[in-house]
Every structure is written in C-alpha cells, then in structure tokens.
C-alpha cells in the first residue's frame, strides 16, 4: 500500500487551471510581439527533384514582403542524424519539402508571395516503400547514405548505442522449441497524433550572433542545445517555452520550423513568427516511423520463448531525427516483454521519399511490438497458450537483465507486474470471455465479439539528466526553477506538489519559473516516461538541499541540531516540540536560500502497461466497434489521481488504440502526396463513440525517489494496437495482421471481397464462414455454459 501524504496522491487543482478555463493560458500564437513579421514556407509539389532555378524577384516586389530566402541565401546549417539535411537544400526529397521562406507584414501577404516564386524542378524518380528503397538501382536520397540505409546508432546514446539484440545461441533455442513460427508483419499506417495546437516558432535575431526563440514544445531546453549545434556552435540560443497545446512526443524536436523563423529574423532584423497550417502539420511535420519486421520465434508449451531471430526494418521517411534512438529503445523494450536467452535480431533504418518520421509517444517500442507480437501470437495459437498467461510469464522480473539503449547490460530492480496483470484481467473478465485463439467471445447473428490483450513498458523512466533549483524565501514561500513546459500532463503542478511535500508548505506558496533556458538549469524535458522519476528526483533533491541549508542556518537559534528540526507551514521547531518555533524569516529578510538537485540516468527500473480490449465486428459491413478497454498498471505511488486517469484515457487517440481501428495517414504510392492531410479526411474518435474505459492502477512502492513513484502516462497508447489485432482476429476467426483493421480489410480476411475490393460470391462465402465459426463457437460456448462468458 502507498503511504499517506499531505499533498502527494491527493487530487489537487492544477496551477494553470483557472488560466485554461478562462482562455488566459498563453500558447505560442497568443503571445504579442512588437514589430512582428509573419513567415510562410513554400513547399515542394514533387517527391524527389532538383531545384534547377528559382526566381524570387516577383515575390520580393510584392508590397509588405520583407524577405524571401532560398537554398542559395542560407548558411550551411545541416540537421538530422547523421547530419545530412540542409535547412534549405537544392534538392527536395518529399512532397512538402521546404523550397523557400517568406517573411511579410502579415500572413496573408506572405502566402500570396509564395505563389509568386517561380521554381523550375528537374523531377527525379522517387521511392516510397522501404524494401524497394533498399534494392540496387533504387533512387538515392543522399550521396552520404548509400542504398538509402541510414547510419546506425545515435551519438546521443554513446559509442555503443544499441542497434540490435544478439546474444545466446538461436539455433540451439529453436531446437528446444515446441513450436517455431515466422512471418513478416508491419505497423506502417503512420497514424498521426495531431496535437490540436499546430507546430510553430517565433524567433528574434540580434546581431551579431544571438537568437531568442519562443517555442511550442515539450522539451524547450533541449531545443536550445539542438539549435546551438545546428547553427555550427556559433550562435547563442535562448528558448522560452510556453503552454504547449499537445505534443504526444512529436514536439520534441521542431528544429526546422525554429530554424526557418531564425533565418527570416536574421534576414530582416525583426521578430518572425511561423505557425504551420493543419495541412503542413499533417503533411510536413513529424510522423511515426514505419515498422516492418520479419521474425522467427521458438516457443515451448509452457510459454517459454526459446529463440527470437529476424530483421526489423524502419522507414524513417526522408531523413532521421530520432529514429536511431527509437530503434535503440525499441530493442531494449522488446527484451523487457520477452524473457528469452537466445536472440539474433538485426535492424536497418531506411530513407524513403515521404515526410520524415520523428519522435512519437511509444518511442520505438510501440512500433516494434506492433510488428512482433503477431508472430508471437501465431506460436501461442499453435501451442494453445492464453496470451495473459504468456505476458505474465514473459514480462521482465526482478533480477532479470537486458541490454539498454547505450549498449550496456542492466539488471532490473523493479517490481514483478504479474499481480497488476491479474487484477486487470479480473476487472476485464478475461477468464470468462477467453474462448481460445481465433474464437469469438460471443456471437449475435452477423456480429461477433472478440477480446485481445497487449503489453508495453520501458526502462526510460529514468533516462537522461535533469537539474533543478529550489529557492526559499523568508516569507515562507518558495520557487522551483525547472525548465518545464506544460504540455498537458500536469507535471508543472506535480513538481510543485513534490516540493510542497518536502518543504511542508501549501502548494499555493510555490511558484515555478517560466521555461526560460536563460534562468533555469539543464533539463532534458518531460520526454519518454521520465517526468515523474527523473525530473521529479531533481526537484525533490533541490527542495531537500534547500531545506537542509535552512535548518542548518537556524539550528543555533533553537539550540538544536539541524537533523532534529522540522518545518511545517513556514515554521521551524524541534521535532515533537512545536510550541517553541521560529519562522523561515529567521534566515534574515535580505536573504534567499538556493537548493540544487540533479538526477543522473538510471536504466534499472521499468514501467508496465497492460491493455485489454473487447471489440464487436459486424461481419456484414466489416465495421469494428470498440466495446470496452481496461488499462492495468502500477505507478508505485500515484502523484495526482485525476491527472493520471486523464493520461491513461489517452490510450485511444494520439495514435494509440485507434491507430489499429481506423486512424491512418494515406500516402499516394504514385505521387507521394498525403491524401488526408486535413481533419475531415483524417478520422478521429468523437464524443459519441467513447467506449467505457476502466483504469486499474496499483501502488506498489518502487525504489525510485522518496515518493516511490514512476511515470506511466506515456505508455498508455502502446499496448492497445496489438490488442486490437488480436481481438478482431479472435472475433472473426481468421488472422488480421495489418493496421488499421478497416472494414475493407475485415471483409477481405473473411473472403467477402477480393484483393481488388470487389464483392465475392457472398452467399457462398457467408454460408461457409458462418458455418465454420458457428460450429467452433457452439462447441466452446456449450463447454463454458453457465460462465456467462458468451453474454
């Protein structure tokens, strides 16, 4: 059981609540700037082409236009991993690639100017499929990346960055298996989280070499570092983070829009704002990496995985920003969910002529497991293993080890999540509903129900470094200096809560510094699942350090040792003797006390999310309806109950469960255009279609920081998609292996339409499918009569 605290674990009001509900919360586009110009980007209509000639003279002559920049005008700023992408290049590599930048006195004039720029292209052949891109003779995106293969590993994770999982003896492992299954599966529908607030930036350049940026980002301190390196380490960069209108991992790196605004400000000497349109947001901002895996697994009857071999191919689009990092983390995460001694899993990252992939919630592991779990399911089906039993057996246990992102081996010192999985299964009614593989849990005429389960967890809850200061004031108040933007998780308020608990002062007496890189210490940002443990640790330590200094300073006044003192509500007294106390003001009214806290990376703890889903499939129309979701996790200690519940409910959108049911980004394989780059054609779940969600959250204290908590919010989206494939396959009695399970795919799997989408001889097919499924169901339902499982 979790400990009782004064603030931690209590539902408290978010500090920005009143601002949000009154429209007073300032997002990037709400901030007013004096003398502001507006920037727009001219984008390529071709997927792959050389720019032969650009004539910008007509655009420059349009009244109100202050600058027009092309690849010929800009410095040699090169981004990406490895650095191969010029901020503006003479080659374009996807439909939407930046060709020219315009700054004008308003957005309308800037847009008009774009139409006046004349560009002559030499069109090149393009490639949109990752395996096609790897073939000899395929169009080459970069001279530096022969075969379109992106250099493995990211320098950010060190020289031994994890790029594969190789250990043990796979041949021996396959020899010990009771079943060996293999297949090629993908998660390539590049569903887009689409945060409501579009990406953007405001830059103000000051000669000779300083730029201040206002960003809408998840990790604003990191922007400063990324841009510093992008600008050749010659520009002093300051970032201001504001409220961020959703990110879901995508607004980790917005270096392109930030550098466009910087270039235009440098050219004009005035602040320049660029806010992407929704079309640009969907077609020219971050996509999830495409994932395709050929895998072979060996499994014993008891669910032991004896060997895993295969190749994981990752489509990064036209360049890689974070894809090597996602591959490294994914390779770690697959080991967390599959306890196996023998591995031979190789990876390759491939460039294609579509918009680039980047960071998205579920970072690598979701992409990999959505492709890998279908292979495991084939083996489980062959051996008739219940998937809940399988994940309980195979999720990392205390004392197990794994290679993590830096290539080092870590021994897990967290908890066993089996109890949590059991409690989730009970809430869901798994045992009553599970009828075996490819068996519906209930049948009502043409409508069939099926259930599925997925699991995900990561050891990046303790990744990277954080620093914080806590400043105590003589009036009994405090200030937390932590470079954190608020992107919806409520973390700014949660750190206040942690500091309040350490200092024992009301949360209202604590303010947080604005996310300004000039005044705050280093902060990697609330990225991955690191917010609660990593950033929280820095805030807690800073508060503890400040408290210690305060008590040491006033101890002589109370004739006591510092370690015997307590402080509550701004009063200091000897423990157990509150009748004789002094105020924080005893520090002196011309003084503040500054505590410092730092967190260093720790990869020995992991979180875990298990998601159970029930779907109903209409076998006449192919429509899949989500009936019920149960998320089960263990947070160690809940910090903020309503905030956590909100994070877990996030399992549906932001490319979670719905990326398996209907969400997809549709890329035209001939032209390379994204066909649904707007919020009407890109489908999203509405209020009218909400399924019941039950969140089972346990609190088993874990050895993280003093509040024994770990972050679980990020991973809420990740187990769902694989659970959906399983549930739909079970409902209809045949395997579906492609995301999302659109009506077309369901009807194809049922043999009701053919590969061209034409209707097959429906009477015959229906009779056959119904007879087959009904016979199986009847047998099962009869066997389970009285359990209520077929209700």
């Amino acid at each position: 059981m979790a400990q009782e605290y004064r603030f931690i674990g209590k539902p408290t009001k978010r500090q920005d609540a009143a601002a949000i509900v009154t429209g007073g919360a300032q997002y990037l586009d709400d901030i007013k700037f004096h003398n502001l110009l507006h920037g727009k980007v001219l984008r390529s209509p071709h997927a792959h082409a050389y720019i032969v000639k650009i004539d910008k003279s007509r655009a420059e002559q349009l009244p109100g236009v202050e600058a027009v920049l092309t690849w010929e005008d800009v410095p040699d700023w090169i981004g990406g991993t490895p650095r191969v992408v010029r901020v503006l290049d003479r080659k374009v590599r996807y439909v939407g690639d930046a060709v020219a930048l315009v700054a004008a006195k308003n957005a309308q004039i800037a847009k008009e100017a774009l139409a006046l720029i004349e560009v002559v292209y030499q069109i090149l052949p393009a490639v949109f499929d990752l395996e096609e891109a790897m073939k000899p003779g395929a169009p080459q995106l970069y001279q530096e990346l022969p075969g379109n293969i992106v250099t493995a590993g990211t320098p950010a994770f060190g020289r031994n960055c994890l790029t594969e999982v190789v250990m043990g003896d796979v041949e021996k492992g396959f020899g010990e298996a009771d079943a060996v299954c293999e297949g090629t599966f993908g998660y390539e529908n590049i569903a887009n989280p689409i945060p409501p607030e579009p990406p953007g930036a405001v830059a103000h350049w000051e000669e000779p070499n300083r730029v201040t940026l206002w960003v809408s980002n998840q990790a604003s301190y990191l922007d400063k570092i990324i841009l510093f390196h992008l600008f050749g380490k010659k520009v002093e960069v300051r970032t201001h983070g504001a409220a961020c209108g959703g990110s879901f991992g995508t607004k980790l790196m917005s270096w392109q829009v930030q550098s466009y605004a910087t270039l235009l400000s440098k050219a004009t000497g005035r602040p320049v704002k660029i806010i992407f349109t929704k079309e640009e947001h969907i077609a020219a901002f971050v996509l999830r990496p495409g994932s395709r895996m050929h895998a072979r697994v060996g499994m014993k009857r008891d669910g032991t995985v004896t060997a895993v071999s295969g190749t994981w191919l990752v489509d990064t689009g036209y360049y890689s920003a974070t894809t090597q990092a996602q591959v490294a983390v994914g390779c770690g995460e697959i080991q967390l969910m599959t306890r196996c001694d023998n591995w031979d899993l190789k990876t390759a990252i491939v460039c294609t002529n579509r918009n680039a992939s980047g960071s998205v919630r579920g970072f690598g592991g979701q992409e990999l497991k959505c492709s890998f779990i279908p292979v495991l399911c084939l083996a489980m089906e062959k051996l008739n293993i219940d998937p809940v039993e399988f994940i309980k057996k195979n999720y990392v246990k205390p004392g197990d080890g794994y290679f993590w992102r830096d290539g080092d081996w870590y021994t897990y010192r967290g908890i066993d999540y089996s109890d949590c999985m059991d409690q989730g299964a009970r809430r869901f009614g798994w045992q009553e509903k599970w009828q075996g593989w490819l068996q519906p849990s209930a049948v009502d005429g043409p409508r069939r129900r099926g259930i599925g389960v997925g699991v995900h967890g990561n050891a990046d809850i303790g990744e990277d470094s954080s620093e914080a200061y806590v400043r105590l004031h003589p009036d009994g108040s405090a200030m937390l200096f932590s470079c954190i933007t608020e992107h919806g998780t409520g973390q700014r308020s949660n750190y206040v809560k942690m500091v309040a608990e350490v200092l024992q002062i009301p949360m209202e007496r604590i303010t947080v510094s604005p996310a300004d890189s000039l005044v705050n210490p280093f902060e990697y940002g609330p990225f991955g699942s690191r917010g609660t443990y990593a950033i929280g640790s820095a805030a807690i330590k800073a508060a503890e350090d400040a408290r210690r200094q305060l008590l040491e300073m006033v101890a002589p006044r109370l004739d006591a040792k510092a370690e015997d003192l307590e402080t509550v509500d701004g009063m200091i007294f000897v423990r157990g003797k509150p009748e004789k106390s002094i105020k924080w003001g005893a520090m002196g009214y011309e003084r503040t006390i500054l505590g410092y806290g730092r967190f260093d990376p720790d990869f020995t703890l992991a979180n875990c999310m298990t998601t159970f889903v029930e779907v109903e499939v209409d076998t006449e129309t192919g429509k899949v309806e989500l009936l019920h979701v149960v998320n089960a996790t263990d947070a160690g200690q809940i910090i903020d109950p309503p905030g956590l519940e909100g994070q877990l409910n996030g399992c549906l959108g932001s490319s979670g469960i719905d990326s398996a049911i209907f969400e997809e980004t549709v890329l035209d394989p001939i032209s390379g255009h994204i066909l649904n780059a707007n919020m009407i054609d890109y489908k999203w779940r509405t209020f009218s279609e909400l399924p019941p969600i039950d969140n089972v959250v346990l609190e088993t204290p874990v050895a993280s920081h003093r509040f024994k908590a770990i972050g679980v919010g990020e991973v809420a989206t990740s187990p769902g998609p694989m659970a959906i494939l399983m549930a739909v396959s079970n409902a209809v009695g045949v395997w579906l292996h492609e995301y999302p399970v659109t009506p077309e795919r369901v009807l194809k799997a049922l043999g009701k339409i053919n590969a061209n989408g034409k209707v097959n001889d429906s009477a015959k097919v229906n009779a056959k499918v119904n007879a087959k499924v009904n016979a199986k169901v009847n047998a099962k339902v009869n066997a389970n009569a009285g359990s209520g499982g077929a209700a």
Partner: protein
Amino acid sequence: MAATNKGKTAKPAKVVAFSVNGKAVELQIGSEPHQVESSHTLAHTLRETLGLVGTKITCDNGACGSCTVLIDGKAILSCMTLTVECQGKSVMTIEGLADPVSGRLDPLQQSFIDHTAFQCGFCTPGMIMSAKALLGENAAPTEDEVKEALSGNFCRCISHYHVVKAVLAAAPGGSE
C-alpha cells in the same frame, strides 16, 4: 492615407457592428491594418483585431470545434463565420463567461477546474463554449445529449470522460 485619398471624395467606410461579451464593437470594413477585410473570419477578428486570443484555432477548416463561440446563444465555428456576417449579432467568447464585476467564474468553468476536465487545455475554450450553448438550451441534459453536443469538438489528450462529468455536474437542472 491622405496621399491616396487626395483629390477624391472620401466615401464613408462601411462598418460592421456587433457586440462581443456584452460590449459594442464597431469595425470598419476595408483593407487597412485597423480595418476588417470582408474575407476575415470571426476567429481571425477576435484574435488578431480584438485581441481575444482565448478562442483557439486548430484546423481553421470547420472540422475540430476549437474555435467555437456563441452567436445569440448558439454555438458556431468562428473559423467558418465571416466577421461581416455578424452585423447586429451578440457574440460571446470564453473571455466573456466569468462575471465581469465579481470575476466569479461561470459554473461550467468552475466545474471544468473541479473535474480536471482538460490536459493540454488547447481545446478547452471550444469545449466550454459548446457546453455553454447546450446548457442554455437544455438545463438538464442526459449523458448522451452532452456527448452529442460535444461531438464536433476534437481533443487529442482524451479529456472527454472528465469533460462529460464536468458538464453534467454544471447543468443547473442536473441531479449532481
């Protein structure tokens, strides 16, 4: 201005007059910076001309409900409404919900706070305005009626479940 108008008889500029949050607004129609162009949407005018940036723009295409405001009590998409169409109308935005004298929040706003019915908060003003229109028409909506009224409002964090609770709790004729 004087130079361009020299020698011409200056025509009186056309105006569009309406109220925003109870205050009369009269804007000239034209293409000068201080004027409203006939192509300007209400969302643009509220944000850029009147400085009421509580109204958010997400899709600017009538698909997501972020820019929802009330016109004569009905929820409308301000990104799909031209400012010149608002002649004589009464517009209410998120900034107009709290009591202008006491500063006391509208019960819906307070309920959104009490239920933490937001995460990133970007869609929240639109959600609250859609809910305000619903409660104006139906003081005791059912859960399904709340969902139906909000079905045009996009939220990606999935604050929906908390929002439904917040709206039901704020309904003056509701049981909570």
